[in-house]
């Protein structure tokens, strides 16, 4: 697999391939598996993503602690805001849906992780609904997203415990931005700018879940992460470029993660988890889980 997005973008453009084709070819060569076989695994992942969104939209699922649940349904059927009826609102609902299913021990695709699993399916399936993209196209997009995540894993981190939320939902947003830009007809180079424009907006984001549980604010971070990804996609497709090369943006995400105090890396020692209300809720709810709900 590529170790830099610059290499992947250059390779794809020099050979007239898309990033998804370059990603599938590289994976096939690395793993000794046929492209068809890899696409079949990705197609199953897509089906699971759709299933989770469908399940989460109903609004009857709650997490073990009862702290999260039911909010995707509010965006689907609740009172309108300024973005009613738009792709934007639909994507927010989809991101919440996946994370609500995850928090309720439903089946999801960790992409890149379970805590950051809402952004990518929300953006890709939201676009498929509004633009009628085929499942084949979405499978290509998942390959591109996998390539982006693999480069981030190699150069920085995909773990909240290592790099804060920027490494989980930040990576998820970067994967969504790059793959969706290509899905919408952007060039590999534009996809690179979409990733950089998205990741710059996620830099420094801490991992501060109440009680250390993948619930609050994780569920909402996926929705706001998807919003930043949509901003990155929109800017890149309009021809906006980001002056710092995408690999350097990823490298600095890793550097910020390493410098981040341990309180902000999934330990529930700082951030929202350590607010008076955060501490109180965590204590009450963890007690409730111990008693069996």
């Amino acid at each position: 697999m590529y170790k830099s997005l610059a290499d992947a973008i250059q390779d794809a453009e020099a050979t007239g391939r898309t990033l998804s084709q370059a990603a599938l070819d590289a994976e096939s060569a690395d793993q000794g598996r046929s492209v068809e076989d890899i696409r079949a695994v990705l197609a199953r992942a897509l089906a699971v993503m759709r299933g989770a969104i469908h399940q989460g939209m109903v609004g009857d699922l709650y997490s073990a602690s009862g702290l999260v649940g039911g909010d995707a349904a509010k965006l689907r059927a609740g009172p309108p805001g300024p973005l009613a009826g738009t792709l934007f609102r639909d994507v927010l609902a989809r991101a919440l849906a996946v994370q609500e299913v995850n928090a309720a021990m439903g089946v999801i695709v960790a992409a890149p992780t379970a805590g950051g699993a809402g952004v990518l399916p929300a953006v890709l399936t939201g676009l498929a609904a509004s633009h009628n993209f085929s499942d084949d196209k979405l499978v290509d997009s998942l390959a591109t997203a996998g390539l982006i995540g693999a480069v981030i894993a190699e150069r920085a981190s995909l773990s909240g415990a290592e790099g804060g939320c920027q490494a989980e939902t930040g990576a998820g947003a970067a994967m969504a931005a790059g793959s969706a830009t290509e899905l919408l007809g952007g060039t590999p180079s534009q996809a690179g700018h979409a990733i950089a424009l998205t990741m710059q907006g996620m830099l420094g984001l801490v991992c501060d879940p109440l009680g250390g549980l993948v619930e609050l604010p994780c569920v909402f971070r996926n929705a706001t992460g998807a919003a930043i990804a949509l901003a990155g996609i929109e800017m890149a497709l309009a021809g906006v470029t980001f002056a710092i090369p995408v690999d350097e943006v990823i490298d600095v995400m890793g550097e910020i993660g390493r410098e981040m105090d341990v309180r902000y890396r999934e330990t529930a020692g700082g951030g929202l988890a350590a607010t008076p209300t955060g501490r109180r809720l965590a204590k009450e709810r963890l007690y409730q889980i111990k008693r069996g709900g």
Partner: protein
Amino acid sequence: MVSLLDIIGPVMVGPSSSHTAGACRLGLLGRGLVSGTPEKAVLELHGSFARTGEGHGTDKALAGGLLGFRPDDERIRTALEIAEKEGLDYRFEKTALGDDAHPNTVRMTLDHGDVHATLTGASLGAGRVLVTEIDGYPVEVTGSFHTIVMIAEDIPGSIARITGILADHKINIATLRLTRKQRGGDAFIVIECDESPGEGVRDEIRSLEWVRWARRLDKVAA
């Protein structure tokens, strides 16, 4: 090398790839170690596994793995009840394994039939796991391959004999590591295979008089 299928995956029961999916895989490795659902399991949880395990379903995922459920099996949600029905007597304990232990570590003591075994493993994130100890011996097993772990006397031709047995059973070796403390001392051998070596292969290796100890761990990662 990172695979894009590691990034888009695993398909799993939530909420945490490290505390749920990884825990399930460690349970599966424990099950593999004793070749079936243990009748008795003591699971000592260290660090974040001990602190936030209950809220993440780590207990259910570990029990589910011991029962043979894979990370995407929805029966994980009710694994503790199923364990009781299937005669898996489990006990969770909180422990402190020291600062060197990974924050998400579990130490299992398992009994199945006349097999008694211990395994210590950590969940590294994104569902990846690493077994660091089996029956008191330090190991490094990732569960990405079918693995044979063994201790043998350091005699000439031992590797040739073992690889010969694997070849006879048409099992291809992916990696092979041999370490020893001193010349003529015991050799510690970890063999990762592309195909699953059956019980027959394990028993054939065990029957070699210079093999002191051998265990088989089936692949648990995608």
